């Protein structure tokens, strides 16, 4: 019961946060520019076209009225029309969501698989050479520009060794759409060949995204393990002669992981944000590539919709992680 109350309280924060996000995007798109219609219409529009847009979007109305209209449209799922493709932006965004999520989730899994063990090892070897090496690598992982790393990996694995495709998500047709995740859809269809292909395309962008994320996870896991190592329950278990392995991989890891989990929402947000540049380098047809193309084409509506959409996704994902964390910790259950 208590958990339900806590979850509801978290969920109750969502509408005001989303409203705040909408207000920010509204401010950016309608208040900051001197003439929003001019910006939305693009550089090559004629004065008549600009005027038509002004009428159509009600940009001559008082701001409050504009905001209410804006809000009403969003609630109805209308994020505007792409000036480039002339299609509703929502359709484009939803169609690309799966590609970005496949990438981000794969990167998240990889980052956890690398980051947690390295963090534990680093903490257990505190201040010895292995710890120093891991910490230096972590520092570098956090300081690297992701797009640069992407280019280096591309240069080495795709262009020099030729073991991975340079860019794209699949060659030929993708698998039948079920989840929208090519790898999983291929598995469901029992199509090993497509799965292998999809995986080869997935591997480099995933690795690029995962490296800074793994570095963050290493840092938090290391700190969490060090904290747990000095805790009383670990001392008690050691004094009672429980095997070191049991203490570390059962008790210490669990308490370190709870702390790391708090950060995973943040890490996932960084992954989504990082996808904007990484998808550009690998031509991965997700939200990020969409944003990049929209920037190139000065497709203003599309960019604002992208901001709103990504922001909302991020808020929802964080909420889910928050609830998951509450479930995992018996003290808050």
């Amino acid at each position, binding site marked *: 019961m208590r958990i339900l109350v806590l979850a509801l309280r978290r969920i109750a924060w969502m509408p005001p946060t989303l409203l705040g996000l909408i207000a920010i995007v509204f401010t950016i798109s309608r208040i900051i520019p001197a003439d929003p219609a001019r910006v939305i219409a693009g550089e090559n529009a004629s004065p008549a076209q600009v005027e038509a847009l002004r009428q159509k979007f009600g940009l001559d109305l008082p701001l409050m009225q504009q905001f209410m209209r804006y809000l009403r449209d969003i609630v109805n799922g209308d994020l505007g029309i792409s000036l480039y493709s002339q299609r509703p932006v929502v359709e484009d965004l939803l169609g690309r969501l799966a590609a970005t999520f496949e990438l981000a989730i794969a990167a998240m899994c990889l980052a956890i698989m690398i980051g947690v063990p390295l963090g534990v090892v680093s903490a257990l070897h505190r201040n010895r050479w292995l710890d120093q090496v891991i910490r230096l690598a972590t520092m570098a992982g956090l300081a690297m520009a992701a797009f640069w790393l992407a280019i280096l990996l591309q240069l080495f694995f795709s262009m020099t060794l030729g073991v991975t495709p340079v860019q794209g998500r699949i060659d030929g047709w993708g698998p039948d759409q079920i989840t929208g995740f090519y790898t999983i859809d291929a598995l469901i269809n029992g199509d090993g060949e497509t799965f292998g292909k999809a995986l080869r395309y997935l591997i480099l962008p995933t690795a690029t995204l995962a490296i800074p994320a793994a570095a963050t996870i290493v840092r938090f896991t290391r700190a969490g393990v060090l904290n747990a190592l000095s805790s009383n329950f670990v001392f*008690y278990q050691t*004094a*009672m002669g429980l095997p070191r392995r049991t203490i570390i991989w059962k008790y210490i890891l669990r308490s370190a992981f709870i702390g790391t989990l708090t950060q995973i929402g943040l890490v996932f947000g960084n992954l989504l944000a990082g996808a904007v540049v990484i998808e550009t380098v690998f031509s991965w047809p997700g939200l990020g590539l969409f944003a990049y193309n929209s920037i190139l084409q000065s497709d203003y509506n599309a960019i604002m919709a992208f901001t709103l959409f990504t922001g909302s996704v991020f808020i929802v994902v964080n909420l889910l992680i928050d609830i998951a964390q509450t479930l995992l910790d018996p003290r808050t259950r």
Partner: protein
Amino acid sequence: MVAEKLLSVEGLSVHYITEGGTARVLDHVGFSIRHGEIMGLVGESGCGKTSLARAILGVLPGNAEVVSGKILFKGSDLLRLAPSEAEESIRGRAISFVPQDPFTSFSPLFSIGEQIRTLMRWKSPDRKPGEKVYGSGRRKRDRERVMAMLQAVQLPDPEGLLKKYPHEVSGGQRQRLMIAMALLPEPRLVIADEPTTALDVTIQAQILKLLKRLITETGASVLFTTHDLGAAWEICDRITVMYAGQEAETAPVQSFFDRPAHPYTKKLLDSLPTENSPLIGIPGRVPSLLNPPAGCRFHPRCTSSTEICHHKQPDVTEMGYEHAVRCHHPIMGGGQ
């Protein structure tokens, strides 16, 4: 009738290497515990009693260094034991442990039942050395043991308790659980490090009584560290007073309270306003272990110190039946 010694510590010196220098936490400590006896280790905080307990368990902090001495347990030196052997057959098995703080000594993330199950998996008396699997037969017998033990420590609703998480039960109940967990492996020696300090005064007495009764039933020995002379009086057979990393006086509980021979012991007893209250101050400060005073460690605070106390460390003097003191001028008399 001198009973056989279960544990004897001989000339044990332990240093902690700190940023400020080397702290001589234990300095040529000698004392022993017999079969089935409750030995009280009494002293102010920082006197080395907890370090002594940790040394016996083999869990000194990372910056500790054993400089000299032996810890003989059933005739073999624990300090020379392979670490894996100590983990496998000494800690939690032959020698078990009741911690000071029952609030933080459980992991908050696992149910009590799960934590007891982990303990029994590795430390059940049924487990053969080196056994890795936890077979269903042993699991069943262990479960019965646990149920019986929870009843013995007078915990209500054992079934429900095992499903609970540590934060859901009271401090007194948690300490009962800690005692149960210490006794489940059927150890020969239980090290109880200030087991009642973190508890309410009313609960302290109950826990002490329980500990005493259960120990007497199982025939195990206990090393009970405390700064509470009242508690020591309640349950101990013999008492050792520690001061600045050395044992000052060892005596059977009756002679200890009737005929204290060390000036420090005398002052400790005098500073007790009533029974069952913790120590109050003695003029002067506990000396720094980084740079202890020359000669007798206690001389700067001692009212009967003389020239010799300033430069010569006193040896241990036998004062009578099982009564030993480390002082140049032990207090004689009291009714012999």
